[in-house]
């Protein structure tokens, strides 16, 4: 993937840009964009896609000034302003979904549509989300993928951590990326979003992998309770990394979300019933 760089109030930020059409801003999960290439390219067939990397990810500089949820939320609005985008479709995956939801709650009139793909941000005591920060690479696939073996190959989960050179690269990358993510996800990935979701006005689509074991689909119900008009698409044969495992199903669902204010098919059906 090729990245461009844009200056923000704090640090220069890298972003991926592709396609033509309505602006769509994609916010990645805690693992970065490494597995998102096919998904972003598919979206770019219908949208003008921007995918900024959070400070600490890829070549985006780390940013000590970003400390809490509000900082992350406003920083991402800063990026969108710097890119000159107005009324974007905001698509966020996992951690990115948490940020996108906050952005839509903070600035409810500035988001055209909101797509939350297995978003973080809520916490149900009876369904605790597993601690990804303490996991070794080989433990991740069962939480992230429906097809664990294919997932393990995709993320190189079976590497030997006994190679010092590799270990150092692995630890530096983790320190930069998960270090940054930890500011809003550690030790519990919840920063009060539940109390702000009521502010969201954008038409909202929730997309969830049916076999998500990291943030199980019961969290979709919690989001729907808080955002009453949200539509849910449950994708079969997909785990947490739903856009990686079922790329076209997720892209199609996003394509079907109508323009702002226009009822979607699913919503119409629900209304008639």
């Amino acid at each position: 993937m090729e990245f461009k760089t844009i200056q923000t109030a704090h640090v220069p930020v890298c972003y991926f840009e592709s396609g033509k059409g309505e602006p769509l801003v994609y916010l990645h999960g805690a693992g970065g964009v490494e597995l998102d290439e096919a998904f972003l390219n598919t979206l770019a067939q219908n949208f003008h896609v921007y995918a900024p990397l959070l400070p600490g990810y890829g070549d985006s500089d780390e940013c000590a000034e970003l400390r809490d949820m509000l900082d992350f939320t406003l920083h991402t609005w800063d990026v969108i302003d710097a890119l000159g985008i107005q009324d974007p479709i905001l698509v966020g995956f996992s951690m990115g979904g948490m940020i996108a939801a906050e952005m839509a709650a903070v600035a409810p009139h500035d988001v055209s549509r909101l797509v939350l793909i297995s978003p973080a941000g809520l916490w149900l005591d009876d369904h605790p989300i597993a601690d990804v920060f303490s996991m070794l690479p080989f433990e991740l696939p069962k939480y992230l993928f429906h097809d664990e073996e294919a997932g393990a190959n995709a993320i190189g989960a079976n590497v030997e951590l006994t190679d010092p050179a590799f270990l150092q690269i692995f630890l530096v990358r983790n320190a930069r990326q998960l270090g940054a993510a930890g500011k809003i996800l550690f030790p519990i990935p919840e920063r009060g979003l539940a109390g702000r979701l009521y502010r969201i006005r954008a038409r909202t689509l929730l997309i969830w992998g049916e076999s998500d074991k990291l943030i199980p689909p019961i969290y979709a119900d919690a989001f729907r309770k808080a955002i009453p008009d949200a539509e849910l698409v449950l994708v079969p044969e997909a785990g947490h990394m739903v856009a990686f495992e079922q790329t076209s199903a997720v892209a199609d669902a996003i394509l079907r979300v109508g323009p702002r204010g226009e009822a979607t098919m699913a919503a119409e059906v629900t209304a008639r019933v």
Partner: protein
Amino acid sequence: MKFTWFNLMPWPYLPDDFREKHRSVWVDIDSKLFDPVKSHEVYNTYLDLLEYAATLGFDAIGANEHHQNGYGLMPSPNLIAAALARRTEDIALLVLGASIALYNPPLRVAEEFAMLDCITGGRLVAGFPVGTSMDTNYCYGQIPALTREKYREAHELIMRAWHEREPFAFNGRYNKLRYVNIWPRPIQQPHPPIHIPGGGSIETYDFCIDNTYSYSYLSFTGYLRAKMLMQGYWDRVAERNADPSPYRAGFAQTICVADTDAEAEQLYSEHVNYFYNRCLHVYPGFADAPGYRTIKTIQKGALSQYAPLSGFANLTWKDLVEGGHIIAGSPETVRQRMEDLIKSLHVGHVFCLLHVGNMTKEKCMYSTKLFAEKVMPKLRNIFPEHADDNRFWCKPLAKRVRAGSLPVEPELRELAFKDA
């Protein structure tokens, strides 16, 4: 030289198959393995051993802080120090240390250290660790990437509280306090000497040099592996044009003494084995929460001693002795290796881990007594040119009260009316 007798206070009843059946001795250790009734005796024996060491000529007895940890029964080192404060008279109490970023507000540490200093008559040597990632991040929930910033703020707050003599407002990022005005205040002015446990980051080297704090390396892998790290510190001391007093540094070492080398193995190998193969069985995922260690430090190769690469896997007595993890043997063997340790690391403070794993009290006393009588005296004057450097040690009151100084009961009435 200053010698501190240390006991990590391990839980001595971890089962034989602990390594096979449990993933970690720390953080998510099986709580069913802890037996509160048995702990009654364990705690009191460990306190007795600390008090015993205090009678043998050590300079200090020490306590440290760990949480949810099978080899450390001291979530609150200050409670242990308080128990010892009243049962000892002359020896220094070294608390290495209280994790200042974990307390809300960290003034609590400033107050408790002041209390300890007042109760002991100025016998406190204080320590301010950042805390391990296991303790700080996984057990106490601090955000890894913000831990150091919070630590620095806690340090600034405590120091201002100890130095300033008027109430002041403190507008920190993590602490907002309108009236900082601690009460009581420490006897040692402006504050007790400070030791900082570090793991090889330049930031910590500089922090110690800037503040005249002693830098200590608390590793379980022994002095041979510590050379590179300590050399990094001394290089930095030289670069910064600070004096090279060995009291700027300390090192923790597991030590076992018997009459002969063979006897040391016979007496202590099962306990050393217990410590290295059960107590240090830490799940590597807890070693280093992402963001806890700075990138610069990782790039320098200063990894956690619990990280996958350096994790402890089934080490034998021979591995441990030859690798320098432990210093064990006859008094003469131990003296030679201790001298090598002290000179090669250039450390004025040694934290002697003389209780190891599930050692019985008898064996611990035996090893401790041999060390105190036959080894320690011969190591006392390794740095005669720095003998006067008292910047890193406590300065007790010359005249101190003793516990148990109340008047005897039959004279109470007479004494009560004395000033009436």
